[in-house]
């Protein structure tokens, strides 16, 4: 029954990839994926928090009384989110300004709390690390995919470089909020078609 470390890692990349399979954390997904840079930045920030929180929660799960476990998890998560926030401010200020409120909001990202509660508190350190890394990279890949579609169609660029040439008229609907929903839906649809085979 017990999965190997490798399986714990790989499941986050397809089987339970957020936000497509594990439909959690939709708010930052929809809000920040206007450009690939933002998508990757947000994904990496979340990955860092996920991995660190998972490790610490699995270490401390023995001494955290179950009645206050959620409060403890939130303290742990909030600590790492603040670490990310300060580091981003100090080293990647422009990206921090772009992502704005969504960095502090990683604290309430359901994926992070969900993994702490559902996985890390019941498993050892190494599986928790693999799980956090897998889910985090999966989340980063998803955000990159969504933002690649949105940025290329909505602004005609990819990572800031023009890809369709000057004659391309940007389909600016894609960088608006409704475009995010439609893009997410279409990608989910494609994933389901592939997954069914």
């Amino acid at each position: 029954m017990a999965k190997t470390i490798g399986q714990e890692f790989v499941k986050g990349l397809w089987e339970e990839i957020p936000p497509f399979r594990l439909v959690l954390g939709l708010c930052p997904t929809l809000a920040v994926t206007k450009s690939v840079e933002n998508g990757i930045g947000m994904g990496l920030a979340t990955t860092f928090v996920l991995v660190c929180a998972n490790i610490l929660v699995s270490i401390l799960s023995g001494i955290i009384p179950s009645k206050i476990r959620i409060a403890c998890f939130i303290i742990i998560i909030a600590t790492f989110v603040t670490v990310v926030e300060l580091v981003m401010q100090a080293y990647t200020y422009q990206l921090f300004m772009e992502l704005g409120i969504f960095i502090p909001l990683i604290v309430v990202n359901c994926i992070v709390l969900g993994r702490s509660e559902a996985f890390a508190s019941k498993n050892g350190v190494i599986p928790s690390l693999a799980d956090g890394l897998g889910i985090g990279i999966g989340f980063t890949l998803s955000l990159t995919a969504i933002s690649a579609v949105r940025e290329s169609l909505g602004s005609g660029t990819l990572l800031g470089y023009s890809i369709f040439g000057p004659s391309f008229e940007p389909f600016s609907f894609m960088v608006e909020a409704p475009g995010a929903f439609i893009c997410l839906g279409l990608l989910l649809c494609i994933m389901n078609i592939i997954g069914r085979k």
Partner: protein
Amino acid sequence: MREMVKMVIVLTVLSSLSGGLLTALKNTTEERIDNQVLKFVKGPAIETIMEGAQNDPVADRFSLTVDGMERNFFVGVFDGNPQAVAFEAKASGFGGDMGVMVGFNVNTDKIIGVSVTTHNETPGIGATVETNTDFKNQFAGLPADTDPKVKKDGGGINAMSGATVTSRGVCTAVRKATDLYQQIKSQIKDQVKTFTG
């Protein structure tokens, strides 16, 4: 009872560890964050004013406390001599406070340039103050004890078309800057001298 005590202890210890870690991180990143904020928020305005400076005016700065408020002064080195200083003054525009960076030549006591750092003006009307160099160039060369006014108020400044309130705001900010300059001129000059190319 025992459980109660344990809960309190766990939460307290966890919170204090988190607090301690974050305080340490905050202290180590504080200076860098300040630099980043200055570079990205005020930097562009300072660079416009100090175009052609031989140093990095954002890095070469000093602060003075005037009337209980700490202010940053940015020093520009030209022709091997530190002779320009820029600082920010605030005044209300059409949409709240505007920050205006005003540069002075400390040798000739003349304004060398003004540039807007932060504003909340109407896009397309007042917000054009960002790019309207014709308007801003009118301030360059004015004496450092000037009280600029738009023509409508009996002064010599041509207001930006359709944006009298914004133009007035810039004039007010410049006047505040000249007032401050007059008030602490000797202190500024002493400090500026300590920077060398």
